[in-house]
């Protein structure tokens, strides 16, 4: 049997969850034995080169680019996992939710205390730029998500146990300490 293929991405996240993947210490070697990585910042593969079994998503969707990537993942991965608070519920970027986008843009580009040098009051509107969404969306409110691994970041042990269970088909038993939201 060929190795399961795993892809990962960071949307509106801070890469903390990816750090946590790497934080499984020497087990990372076991993981590399067990799976093959495809599109992922870990191996710098930019586009899917084959259908994947598992996609790990860090971060929620704050712009159109995030949405496209997420949909691409959904298309190419059999199983999609929301990894971490931002993917699950928007996380800190979602602090802006509820505030009109207009106010957010004004604060960021016109009126905020750290704004300087934007005398002409330009708001980024080049066609090349991703478009800002009205709020930061949890991934499962954009595409179907199969599993959720909470935490900020998720404990390395949780990621490991979950992946191991998925790959081996064994039942997932989580000790109390590993499921945490912070």
């Amino acid at each position: 049997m060929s190795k399961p293929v795993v892809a990962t991405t960071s949307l509106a996240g801070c890469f903390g969850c990816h750090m946590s993947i790497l934080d499984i210490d020497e087990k990372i070697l076991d993981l590399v034995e067990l799976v093959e990585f495809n599109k992922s910042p870990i191996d710098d593969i930019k586009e899917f080169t084959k259908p994947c079994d598992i996609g790990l998503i860090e971060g929620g969707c704050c712009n159109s680019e995030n949405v496209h990537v997420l949909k691409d993942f959904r298309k190419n991965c059999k199983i999609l996992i929301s990894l971490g608070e931002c993917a699950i519920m928007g996380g800190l970027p979602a602090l802006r939710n509820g505030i009109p986008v207009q106010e957010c843009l004004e604060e960021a580009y016109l009126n905020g205390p750290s704004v300087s040098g934007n005398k002409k009051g330009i708001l980024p509107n080049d066609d090349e730029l991703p478009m800002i969404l009205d709020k930061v969306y949890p991934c499962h409110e954009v595409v179907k998500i199969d599993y959720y691994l909470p935490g900020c970041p998720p404990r390395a042990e949780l990621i490991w146990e979950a992946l191991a269970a998925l790959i081996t088909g064994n039942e997932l038993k989580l000790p109390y300490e590993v499921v945490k939201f912070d």
Partner: protein
Amino acid sequence: MSEKIKFTIDGKECYAEPGQNVLDAAADNGVYIPSLCHVRGLIPAGSCRICNVKIAGRNMTACTTPVEEGMEIENDTAELQDMRKAIVEMLFVEGNHFCPACEKSGNCELQALAYRFQMMVPRFPYEFPLRKPDSTAPKLWIERNRCIKCKRCVRSIKTADGKNIFAFRKRGHEVEIQIDHELAAQMTDEEAKKAADICPVGSILYKEKGFSEPIGTRKFDKNAIGSDIEKVV
């Protein structure tokens, strides 16, 4: 000693003092009924609805129901646990609970219930309401984004002459907690700390203090909520 009242929870024989509510009595018998708004000693509010049990086929909140002789109570059933978990999830989507950035994280009872029920994600869509915090009180910070409207503060924090310092505003989905600015200005350190402690979530915070306990040492880092009760007997 007064006569004890005999009752059962999920078939287990239990004993209560007359006048005791089901929730407290269960705890005294080593049975944990998940609860959130209740604090022993305060008048029960019956507002979170999590302590829901079945008595004679009817759903009743354990914290507001006095034990009666011969009561047969169902507590640990799939249906009730599913509903309790659903309520916890409703509370998560109704407010803005950014646990990673919350001072109460690790000591929060709402979060602890979510851990106990192994909530990975709420089944309901997030609402992301816009709620305004209130920082006008000299010693307290009211972070309404996290308020679960349990009324613990309303019920327990009063002035010496019995006036309310906390109360609700509005109704329904719009309900919010308000603090009396005049009375809050006169609160002592002790009273302010008591208010922050009684709040089950990070909605009442004592100013200029936060994140003081390292992760791993907080109340619910290693021990599930209710495990202390279950250990007793």
